[in-house]
Each structure stands twice: as structure tokens, then as C-alpha cells.
């Protein structure tokens, strides 16, 4: 990358040389540049993309569906027909790992988006309104925090029955609490910054202050936290599935597969190795990306 003008250079000397129109680099562009220089993060993005593509389309390579039973290959080790081997019911593990990946990634994505939307709205409202409303809203969050998570999930299950939607609801309902706290804290600190006061002094309306100044400035930490929430959510889903509270057969997820694999670890280790490998690599990538984004947004904290 050639650098004709560095962002740290003061405009006075930069443009003394070449008086042409300069396109400034926004903080986002700067962050992206720094992220692209972070090798671990870039490699992680690449690997994660490959995993996503394989999970989505890899199934087309094989002639099996997730519930096709091959009677001649029950619990067979990996070979030319069944690349990852097959499980105790003779189902192709390659196809099932990829399908499980789709579920796990979807849960991660959707539950994160749910928590993001609720958390940002709730946190920004509490932080901006402040005072008694803020106290009341945050005490409610505290109460939800103090509920044991497993108790909460079992309660939901008793009421609603086992359902894949339940996982989204359960996980989203827990994860938004953190997001709300983070956004509220950000809003509180931004609210006191001088540029907000400047906007007030210019007569900018409250709604425009939130929209134009507060929300864009909370996005940095929110993006970081979001990338770190996705792996957390995937893990939670795996944990629930491992306990038998997650998705139902014949559907599957990495958690379910690992649970099955763990049960058959001694006779069919491949049943554990493949889903565990995929899960571990995905989590690694997501965490590296999250760390990379955090460093990129806040270069001083490195």
C-alpha cells in the first residue's frame, strides 16, 4: 500500500505540496486499514468464509441427505464414500457436520442480532433519558441477570415445549443484557462529550442528536462486542444441545454432534473429532476477528 498522505500528517503541510481536493479518511476507513494489516484477523476472516461456504454448499458434493441411512456403513470410519465416516445410524457425517454448522452459525447470527437490536435500543434509551427511568430500566436488567440461566431455559421449555425457536429466544434473552449495559455506558459517556453540547447549543433536536451523534459513536464498542457475542452464542447453543435441550433429531447442530460423538468416543472417535474441529476452528476465527476489530478501532489500547 502506498501512502501519499498519512492521516497523522497535519493538513497544512500535506496540502501545501498538492493543492487538490483531499478525501479524508473516516475513523471506519482507518480501522479497516488497520484490520487489514492484522494478519491473524485477515487469515481468520478467510478461514471463516471458507467454513461458511462449505457449510452452505458442501452438501452438493455428496449424494446424501442428512437423514439418509446407509445400511452397509453403520458407524463406519472415514473412507472414499463417507469422507468423515458415518454415525451409529449409518448417516453420512460429512453432510451432518455441514448441516450442523449451518444451524450453529444461524443460531449464532440470529441470536446475536436479536440481542443487538434489543440491547442497543434498551441501553441507548436508558442512557439518554437518564435519571429515574434509567435506574428502573437497569434494575430490571439486574433482576434478569440474577436468574440462573439453566433455570430460565428449563422454565421456557416447560411452558413452550422443545422448539428450535426456543433456543433463539433463550439465548437472545440472556445476551441482550450485556449489550444493553455496554450501550448504556457508552451513551452516558458520549452524552457528556463537548460535541453533544455543541449540538445542543446549535439547536439540534434531541432525536437528531441521538441519531446523528450518539448512535454512530456507540457503534465501535458494539461491533466489537457483537463479534465476540457470536462465538459465545454458538457455545451456548452447543452447551444446550449437549445437555439435550437443543435442536431435535433428525436436525442437528455442532453441539448435538459433539454430544453424540462424546458418547461414542471410544468406538468411533471420528464422530467427535470432526464436529469438534469445525467448532473449535470457527470459535478461534471469530475470537481473532473480534480482537482484531477491537485493536483496529482503538489503536492506543494495544
Amino acid at each position, binding site marked *: 500500500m502506498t501512502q501519499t498522505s498519512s492521516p497523522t500528517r497535519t493538513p497544512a503541510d500535506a496540502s501545501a505540496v498538492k493543492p487538490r481536493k483531499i478525501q479524508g479518511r473516516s475513523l471506519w476507513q482507518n480501522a479497516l486499514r488497520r484490520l487489514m494489516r492484522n494478519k491473524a484477523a485477515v487469515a481468520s476472516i478467510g478461514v471463516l468464509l471458507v467454513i461458511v461456504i462449505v457449510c452452505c454448499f458442501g452438501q452438493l458434493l455428496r449424494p446424501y441427505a442428512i437423514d439418509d441411512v446407509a445400511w452397509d456403513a453403520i458407524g463406519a470410519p472415514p473412507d472414499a464414500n463417507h469422507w468423515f465416516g458415518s454415525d451409529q445410524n449409518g448417516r453420512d457425517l460429512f453432510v451432518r457436520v455441514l448441516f450442523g454448522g449451518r444451524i450453529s452459525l444461524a443460531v449464532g447470527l440470529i441470536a446475536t442480532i436479536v440481542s443487538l437490536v434489543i440491547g442497543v435500543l434498551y441501553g441507548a434509551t436508558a442512557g439518554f433519558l437518564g435519571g429515574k427511568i434509567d435506574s428502573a430500566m437497569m434494575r430490571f436488567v439486574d433482576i434478569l441477570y440474577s436468574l440462573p440461566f439453566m433455570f430460565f431455559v428449563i422454565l421456557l421449555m416447560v411452558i413452550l415445549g422443545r422448539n428450535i425457536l426456543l433456543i433463539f429466544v433463550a439465548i437472545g434473552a440472556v445476551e441482550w443484557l450485556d449489550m444493553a449495559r455496554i450501550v448504556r455506558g457508552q451513551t452516558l459517556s458520549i452524552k457528556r462529550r463537548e*460535541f453533544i453540547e455543541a449540538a445542543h447549543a446549535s439547536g439540534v433536536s434531541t432525536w*437528531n442528536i441521538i441519531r446523528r451523534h450518539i448512535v454512530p459513536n456507540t457503534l465501535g464498542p458494539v461491533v466489537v462486542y457483537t463479534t465476540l457475542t457470536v462465538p459465545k452464542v454458538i457455545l451456548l447453543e452447543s452447551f444446550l444441545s449437549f445437555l439435550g435441550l437443543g435442536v431435535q433429531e433428525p436436525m442437528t447442530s455442532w453441539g448435538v454432534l459433539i454430544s453424540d460423538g462424546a458418547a461414542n468416543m471410544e468406538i468411533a472417535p471420528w464422530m467427535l473429532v470432526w464436529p469438534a474441529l469445525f467448532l473449535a476452528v470457527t470459535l478461534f476465527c471469530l475470537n481473532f476477528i473480534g480482537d482484531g476489530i477491537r485493536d483496529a478501532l482503538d489503536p492506543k489500547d494495544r
Partner: protein
Amino acid sequence: MPEPRHMLEVIDLKVHFPVSRGFLRGQDKLKAVDGVSFNLRAGETLGVVGESGCGKSTLGRAVLQLIQPTDGNVLWMGQELTEADSASLRTLRRDVQIIFQDPLASLDPRMTVGEIIAEPLETHYPEKSKAEVREAVRAIMAKVGLREEMINRYPHEFSGGQAQRIGIARAMILQPRLIVCDEPVSALDVSIQAQIINLLMQLQAEFNLSLIFISHDLSVVRHISHRIMVLYLGKLVELAERDALYARPAHPYTRALISAVPLPDPARERERKRIVLQGDLPSPLNPPSGCRFRTRCPLAEARCAEEEPKLRHFGDGQEVACHFPEREIRP
């Protein structure tokens, strides 16, 4: 409508902040500004000086109605503002602007220079077309000494002096009549301070601007102000024309302040007799009785503890809140 005598009239303004004493132990009152009155003419610069905690920044913000005054009146062009409806507050926001001490902190880091400067214009004149707004931004940028090609850059790409010019452009774009300058040069390098002071004075001359210039730097205030107001712990202690204040400071606090500023002149600095005040600023939560300055005052007597000195005329056109403004201080 006849033009009122003063553009801005502030009468007995008070700003008190509640301060929690701790859980279930009730509240104290922090009297940040406690009964300050002054007025301002068109094209005039009023310097406001005092040390940290004297309430000078709070005063500026209360005039702008950014902080709700506890008591007292603020009249803008003869119109009461403390109970103003949103329409007259809108007029105020158009006519009165503010620039801040930390130029970078006062600019939204996620907006371009062009967007920052345009925001007040878009807020007050939403009917203006994009091209008109851009033209106005360009014009004001040229006025404050920013080059046109900087319009798409972001605040973090600028040095302090340039960022302060952006802040001034944002304040100037609505063609206000009064700008409250809250320590506008204190965060800048010495060689940049003069540039910004010159710019403010030049804008003032060109647009007949009034300035309320808040600063702790008495040299800068002397250069830019027509009249100067000295605050101590939320109280006005002295208000005078610039030359009178520096030639014959009446209040012992003003005298101490002026004598405490080191001169960039080694020989004179070494011969100078200084009034060095003893002790620290008392807590504004629990100010001394009577005259608030008495705990550090070299002239203090028993009377000062009992009776609060009223602001009164002294000499030619000076106003001072002291029982003994005529006494000499022997350092």
C-alpha cells in the same frame, strides 16, 4: 421594534447544583454561580476571569440556557429567556453560539468537517438546498482560514489550532450576534494562540460580534476584552473597563491575580513585588461566611466575616465587591 439598550442583560443569575452527601443523607447545594449581574453591548467583548471552580464556565452555559439557571433572569434583546418557549429559544440558538476549550472533543469524530460546519445551518434552515449549504460552508471556511480541500476530512486529521478553526466556523455559520468563548485558546500551543485570538478579533470587527471571553489567562483577556469581570467562588468581585482594571485593580483578589502572572521579561520579573496569596481555594460546597475571599485576603478584618460586601461603584466606572478597595496591600 426599538432596539433594546443592551443585547444581553443578566440579572442576579444563580446556578445551584444539588450534590448528594451520600446515601440517605440528603443533599448539599453547590452554588456554582451565585447572584451575578452584567450586561453586554453589540460588538463588545466581555472578559470573564477567575480560577478553577469560580463558576465562569457555568455562567457561560447558563447564559446559553445549556444549563437551567436556578434563579435570576437572562434577557436577550430585551426578551426573557429563562422561561422562554421553544420558538424564542430557537432564535437564541441562532443568535448565540459557543466555542469550547478542547477543540477536538467538541467535534463529532465520525463526521466530516463539512458535515460538522453545516449542521447548525441544516438545523435552522432545513429548506436550503445541498448546493446552498455547501456554498455557505465553503464561504465560512475561507473566512476562518481553512482551505476548501479540507471539507471532506475528519477531525482527527487536524491539529488543535485547525480544529479550533473548525469550531469557530461552526459557530459562525449562522451569523450569530454573540459567541461565548469558553477558554478557546488554553489548550493550544503558544504560537497558535495568537492566530486564534487574531481570528476572533477580526471576525468581531467584521460582523460586529459580541464575545463573552472566558479564560484563566489574564494576559489573553487583557488583549481581547473591552470590559472584564472577575469571579471568585461564584461571586462577581470586580467588573471594570479593561484599562482601568489592569492599571488600578481595586479588589485584593484582582490585584493578587494580576501580580501572580509571570512576565516574559526576566529583569522586571525579578524586581517585581508580588502579592502571593496564602492557602487554597475554599470548597465551593462550604464557602466562607461574609466575603468569600476573606480566608485568603491580606486585607481581611472581622467585618469581612460578618458582612458580605455588596458590589459598588469605585473610582471611575469600576464596580467592586470589597469593604476596603482603597487600602494598599504590602507584600
